[in-house]
Every structure is written in structure tokens, then in C-alpha cells.
């Protein structure tokens, strides 16, 4: 195992923990605990499970760090990005789309964070789903990249 493998493992850990937290709490825990009777019990369970809400920033930092190492491992340098040369191949174009969506999620994290924003959280989840899809294409589409 080398640094690259370690980065892949850490990247997947960060994705799984951050998005797992975001998806499961938004899609399952929130709706389920709001319907538990009596409502005080649901409220208590929501509060008790509400810790670890600050996963977003540490996960983002780890994702950017490990993602940078992984991109560099594929031979992409700062010059490639500065000159726009990375857009000359399909891998680079998919990476660009992914980075735009990541930037959107960073803005969401910065401006909204854990404040209630029902519509924006849906947009944030869709962005996360698209990022996962683009990542699968980048890593696993044989012959395309």
C-alpha cells in the first residue's frame, strides 16, 4: 500500500461518512422521528442523534486534500489547470463538472450549513448524487477516459 492507496481509502471514508450522514439524516431520520408518537420522544431522539453535525467541513477538507493527490497521481499539474489544458480530454471535462458541483456544495456548506433550507438541501443532495455519478465515470468507465 502506498500514499495513493491511503488517499483513496481516506477519500472514500470521508465521502461515505459525510454523505451517509447527510443522506440518512435528511431522508430517513428527520421524517421518521417527526412522526414518532408522542412527539416529545421523537424530539428527544432527534436531539440525541443530532451530534456530529459538524462533519461537513472536516470531510470537505479531507476530500480536497486527498482528491488533489489522486489527480496529481494521474499526471495533472497546476499548470494543466491554469492553462485549461485539462479540458482537452474527457477525463478532464468530467473532472471540471465535478469540481463545479463540489464548489456548489462548498457554497451551500458555507452559506446554509445546518440551518433549515428544505429546497436547498434537495439541490445539495442532487449535487452530491451527480458528483458520485461523475466519480464512477472517472474511475470505472473503461475505454472512455
Amino acid at each position, binding site marked *: 500500500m502506498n500514499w495513493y492507496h491511503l488517499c483513496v481509502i481516506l477519500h472514500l471514508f470521508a465521502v461515505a461518512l459525510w*454523505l451517509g450522514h447527510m443522506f*440518512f439524516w435528511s431522508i430517513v431520520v428527520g421524517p*421518521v422521528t417527526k412522526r*414518532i408518537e408522542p412527539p416529545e420522544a421523537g424530539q428527544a*431522539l432527534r436531539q440525541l442523534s443530532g451530534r456530529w453535525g459538524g462533519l461537513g467541513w472536516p470531510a470537505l477538507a479531507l476530500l480536497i486534500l486527498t482528491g488533489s493527490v489522486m489527480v496529481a497521481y494521474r499526471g495533472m499539474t497546476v499548470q494543466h489547470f491554469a492553462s485549461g489544458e485539462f479540458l482537452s480530454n474527457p477525463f478532464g471535462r468530467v473532472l471540471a463538472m465535478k469540481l463545479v458541483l463540489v464548489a456548489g456544495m462548498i457554497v451551500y456548506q458555507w452559506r446554509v450549513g445546518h440551518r433549515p433550507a428544505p429546497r436547498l438541501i434537495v439541490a445539495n443532495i442532487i449535487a452530491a448524487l451527480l458528483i458520485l455519478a461523475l466519480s*464512477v465515470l472517472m474511475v470505472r468507465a473503461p475505454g472512455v477516459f
Partner: protein
Amino acid sequence: MDATITLYLLAIYIHILATVLWVGYSLFWTVLIGPLGRTVAPQQADHLLGLLRRALWPPMAIPVAYRLTLPGFGWVTLAILGLTGTLIALIGGIALPQYRRLFAIKLGLVFVLVLCHYWIAQRPTPKRIYLTMIVTLCVVGTSALLVR
């Protein structure tokens, strides 16, 4: 892209989504069980856990008969992981010997994970929940090595 590759990529995508949801599910129990044991009396904690285990998801939109309990949600996620994982292995293949060994380790860990979930579905205790989280992270780590 031909149909096999599309199916392969779709299987990977669904596998990753199911993984993310499973990690979220394991994390939920991990985050909840600590403060529940410290801040709530044991009898009240059992009552709250009982309410949680019987709560149905989604709470609306589909008939009650088709809704899932939280442990049921875990079982469905594991089933999706098993199905898509089988599909990925069948299409992608486990060609190199070192991957076969890693794959066997992953399968062993998945077996332990299924056992852990069976215990959590019976009665969620801190030891069972923390073990599930640790095994889950080990499976994710092994999978990351298999991808490369």
C-alpha cells in the same frame, strides 16, 4: 458504451449509493447510542429504542404495508449491496490473485456485518453498534483497495 458496460457502471453507482446509506445507518446508531446511555434512564432508553425500531419509513406517500422499519431499511440496503456487488464481480471479474485474496477478506467482513445487523435488529446495544461501525469502515477500506 454498450449495454454491459452501462449495466456495470449503473451497478457500481447503486452499490456506492447503498454503501453511503448503510454508512449513514450505522453512523446513526453509533451517534445515538452513546448519549442515550449517558443522559437517559435505562428504562426510558429502552422505550425510545423500541419506538425507533418500530417507526416506519417513509412515513407517508406509500401504503403502510410497504413501509420499512429501521432494521428493515438496513436489511434492504444490505440486499441491494449483495445484488449489485455480485453483478459487479460477475461483469468486472476478480482477475488478479491478490485481488481474489482481498475479495475473500471483504466477503468475510460482509458476513460479519450481516451477523452484526442481525444482532442490532434483535436488540441494539452499544457493543453491537460500535462493532458494526468498525466492520463497516473495514469493508469500505477493503473496497477502496479492490477498486485500484
